[in-house]
């Protein structure tokens, strides 16, 4: 196995997903097969190759520092499941 239950559980915690007891073995098996497929990338030597982050051979465009946006408050708050007149609301965050 290239990936085990414990690792899958850790990944799920990071990704904020729940993996139930019933599905864990199926998920481990499927992720393991994906990792096996992925591992083929190690077949070729890439020591002197520069990583390619984006297919565009271009550089970042720069935006002038001007305010172009107006308030979207009503629209944004109306889209949220839980909000009052001013804020998005979430279960209490403990700092």
């Amino acid at each position, binding site marked *: 196995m290239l990936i085990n239950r414990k690792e899958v559980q850790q990944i799920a915690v990071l990704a904020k997903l729940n993996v139930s007891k019933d599905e864990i073995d199926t998920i481990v098996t499927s992720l393991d097969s994906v990792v096996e497929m992925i591992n083929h990338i190690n077949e070729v030597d890439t020591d002197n190759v520069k990583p390619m982050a984006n297919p565009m051979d271009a550089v970042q465009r*720069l935006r002038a*520092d001007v305010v172009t946006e107006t308030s*979207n408050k009503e629209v*944004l708050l109306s889209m949220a499941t839980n909000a009052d007149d001013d804020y*998005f*609301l979430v279960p*209490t965050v403990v*700092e």
Partner: protein
Amino acid sequence: MSNQNTTQWETVIGLEIHTQLKTKSKLFAGTNTAYGGEPNTQVSLLEAAMPGTLPVFNEKVLRYAIRFGLAVGAKVIAKESTFDRKNYFYPDSPKAYQITQLNHPIVEHGELVIQDDKGNDKTIRINRAHIEEDAGKSIHDKYTQYSAIDLNRCGTPLIEIVSEPDLSSAKEAVRYMRGIHTIVTHLGICDGNLQEGSFRCDANVSIRPVGQKELGTRTELKNINSFRFVEKAINIEIKRQIKLLESGGTVTQETRLYDADKNETRPMRSKEEANDYRYFPDPDLLPVVIDQAYIDNEKQFIPEFPAQKIIRYTQDLKLKPDDATTIAHDKELSEYFDAAVKQLGKAKPKVAANMILGEFSALLNANDAKVEDNNISPEQFAELLEALAAGTISHKIAKVVMEKIWGTDSTAAQIIDKEGLAQVSDTGELETIVKEIIKNNPSQFEAYKGGDMKMFNYFVGQVMKQTRGRANPAQVKTLLEEL
């Protein structure tokens, strides 16, 4: 261990300073950054992490970051810098990642000279300054069951300035922080308002026995929002760590919050989960590529910093060291002073400094005004000083004239003329007044004649009273002596 209580501890501190940049719009969208807006009114679709929205980089941020790099003599101002995503879930970070610069930051390897606790110069290395987004704010005291989220601050540009662990005491840390504060405020890239969170500091604190090479386990103190608290928080944390180690315990690497009310630090619960931020290059943004000319162009915006100013003020302008220091450290005041001095002819900069720190500052206080409000322009101020230097008015009258200029367009000359405040230097006129006073105070005059020098001052006072302060004191003196 037998020598537990005799161990000498050494403190190692590194600071991460989050400096909000004074741009009009946010880092990646044209959203207003002004402080204090109604909640959630300064949130674009991008900052709300609406699906399909994309970031576009604000050039001002790049330029400001370069200026900071130049000001701290950075060895690297990257010709190619890139943005990375730092992934973590938190309600005030809607995308669930922060765009930052991990691998190729814009600024690396700068330095700042501070004074150590013995008063010697000490160079603090700045590891890097990178561009990143600020988060929104969570408000915890509005509801009992909920935290309220305001995204106005979300996406505001920051540069995070990371020092090497070169600081050895809380006091040094504060000096370093003040030094960085002076730089960013004098550059005009940050308003420096600690209260509003424009300038925030995290401190990495560890201790080790003196002589030990490797660093001790550090704790990170989060978001300390005043110079005073930085010192207190670090000192209390050092105490805590020493106590812990001396009682045989170990320091846990963790993030701690400073509680100013209780003057203690405690672990942050939200940071307990060991985080794996899964940094990777942001595929929505391309490399930021600039050339040397672009960097050089920013040099014109690097102002004279306080240390250089103090030298110029004391050596060239002959200011008293204390006055020079006070003026140099206040950006607005020093700009005002420099502007006024430029207009001076006969008048001495030293007088300008006295006046600025004295009468002018008093006037500002009384009116609850700021230098930059320009209630008296540097030109108006310079003219006033010239009138004083020319003997047209006395120092005392100068204060009166200054009050009358306040908030108007009038020149000193106009006020002096209109209000008849010019010094009376006309010998004939003064002689008449003096003779009149002598006539009305014969006994006092006899006493003066008899050598009672207190009476000399009495007569000067009387002349001043009669002329409402306009008499030229030197001339009055001469006249009295001649009589």
